[in-house]
């Protein structure tokens, strides 16, 4: 099942069991929300295509005692409503969960307007909130638990092409923020979202670190990459300010010298001026899976 639908099914079950949850939508639904809307019509609030109001109304509801899941089409809850995000979530610490459909280039067919490729970089500039990129169903399920049990300002990006389970529920920890699989190696690949999901499934001779919740716990992250000689960061988003930047900042702040190769969207030829999709974009930007795999294996060969 897609990660978004896993999450909403869990939210449905919790509401059915009496949790005081409301979902606030900016004119977006999902098949997995149909039951919720039918059975809890008063708990599904639609503000229309109005992301600024989505954040403000959700915050008011939370202060009135509700557990709030806001649901919007990415990139708009961040790019249109960034001021509300920074004031209400980051500064005032109102613990709403803002979920967004689409991550990175998964809706590239709709054009640049609908690619939330800068959102992670923008949100990384804010303290006191979590940026969650569910790369498997266990994370999505645990996230629904967190809405009820660990209220915190969270921004969640659901990639519509991620489904299936990679991790054990007990290994998911949103404060730690990452999970490591793969093989012991002096090379670590650091990714999130669809890139982590894909790379985890390849049998690569390297460590693969999935940073599904940012900010990561830095000391634990350092321990994880200690002994590595090279880090490759891979993201389906702009390289500027993304997870590659995160790795460089953590290393630089501690004076640790490990070579970092950052793979991400660069748009060196400008923004796409053609009808495109994720696969074509990845090929143009050197992010296609086959190319990435070959590049990583080549690094391993020295």
């Amino acid at each position, binding site marked *: 099942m897609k990660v978004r639908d896993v999450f909403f099914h869990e939210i449905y079950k919790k509401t059915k069991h009496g949790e005081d949850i*409301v979902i606030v939508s900016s004119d977006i639904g999902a098949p997995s929300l149909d039951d919720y809307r039918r059975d809890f019509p*008063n*708990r599904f*609030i639609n*503000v*229309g295509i*109005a992301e*600024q*109001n989505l*954040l*403000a*109304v*959700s*915050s*008011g*509801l*939370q*202060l*009135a*005692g*509700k557990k709030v899941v806001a649901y919007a089409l990415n990139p708009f809850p961040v790019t249109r409503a960034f*001021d*509300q995000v920074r*004031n*209400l979530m980051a500064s*005032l610490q109102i613990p709403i969960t803002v979920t967004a459909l689409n991550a990175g280039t998964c809706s590239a067919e709709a054009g640049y307007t609908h690619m939330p490729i800068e959102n992670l970089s923008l949100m990384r500039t804010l303290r006191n909130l979590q940026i969650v990129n569910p790369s498997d169903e266990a994370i999505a399920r645990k996230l629904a638990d967190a809405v009820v049990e660990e209220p915190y300002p969270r921004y969640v990006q659901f990639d519509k092409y991620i489904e299936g389970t990679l991790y054990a529920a007990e290994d998911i920890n949103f404060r730690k923020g990452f999970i490591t699989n793969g093989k012991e190696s002096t090379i670590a690949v650091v990714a999130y979202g669809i890139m982590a999901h894909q790379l985890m499934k390849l049998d690569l001779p390297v460590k693969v670190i999935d940073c599904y919740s940012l900010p990561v716990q830095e000391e634990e992250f350092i321990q994880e990459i200690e002994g590595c000689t090279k880090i490759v960061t891979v993201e389906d988003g702009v390289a500027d300010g993304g997870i590659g930047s995160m790795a460089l900042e953590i290393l630089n702040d501690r004076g640790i010298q490990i070579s970092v190769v950052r793979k991400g969207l660069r748009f060196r030829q400008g923004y796409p001026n053609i009808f495109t999709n994720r696969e074509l974009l990845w090929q143009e930007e050197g992010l296609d899976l086959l190319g990435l795999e070959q590049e990583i294996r080549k690094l391993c060969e020295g």
Partner: protein
Amino acid sequence: MGQSYGQLYQKSYEMRKRFLEIFTKLGYGHLTTAFSETEILIALLSETMNFHAGNVNDKNRDRLVLSKGHGAGMLFPVFEDLGILSKEEIEEIIKCGGDFTKTRELFYPGFEFYGGSLGIGLGMAAGLAMGAKLNREDWMVFCLLGDAECYEGAIWEAMLFAGHNRLNNLVVVVDRNYLGCSDFTENMCELEPFEEKWKSCNWDTKAVDGHSYEELLGALEGIRSRRTSKPLCIIADTVKGKGLDYLSNKPLMHGFMPKGEEVCAAYENLKG
């Protein structure tokens, strides 16, 4: 009504004077805005809302969302008058290096929210009002907006939402002083016919003199027993800088704070 009109007008003078004491010492603040909204805040906080020193943490208290955050300064004298803040606490807070944590505790849940990033408050007030309805609780939400704040698109998003959802436990007061920072609203981009715009979004409206307690309290009378499903917008005509004629109704006085010899002049010219 707890106090006579005479007492209330005297209170207006005292609150403006106290504002001068607090903020000329700091050397920063939004005097003209504070003086524009003085009667509105007193009418709401002292005479209308179920909000007092004894219930600041009670979940059934009424909420005030001060969306025009540059008007927050006048809350300090009014909160002091209500016994919510002491003089000593204000002195600790309103200074460079003042304890912001304490302020935050008072702002939130004291008045829910600090505005200042204009346009956010009305949506938040609407969310609170909807939350009260979903909880089947009877507390009310009051929201103070600036008229020039209403250029923000988020205000119109929230206006549509509150009208559509029949949030009759929500009362907005617009401080209609006809001034932004740089110019009069009707020169920048006409807001009129302002009242009709609220009506068209399914709001009840009232237009009053925002410096007249007779009119403000008349509009707020019976606010808990209105026989309507609509939210209410009270458009309160005011004068930015009211009480100090030499600052009143002038563009580019938005962030003005008297300094040096101007401070004495401000006290001497302050009108009751």
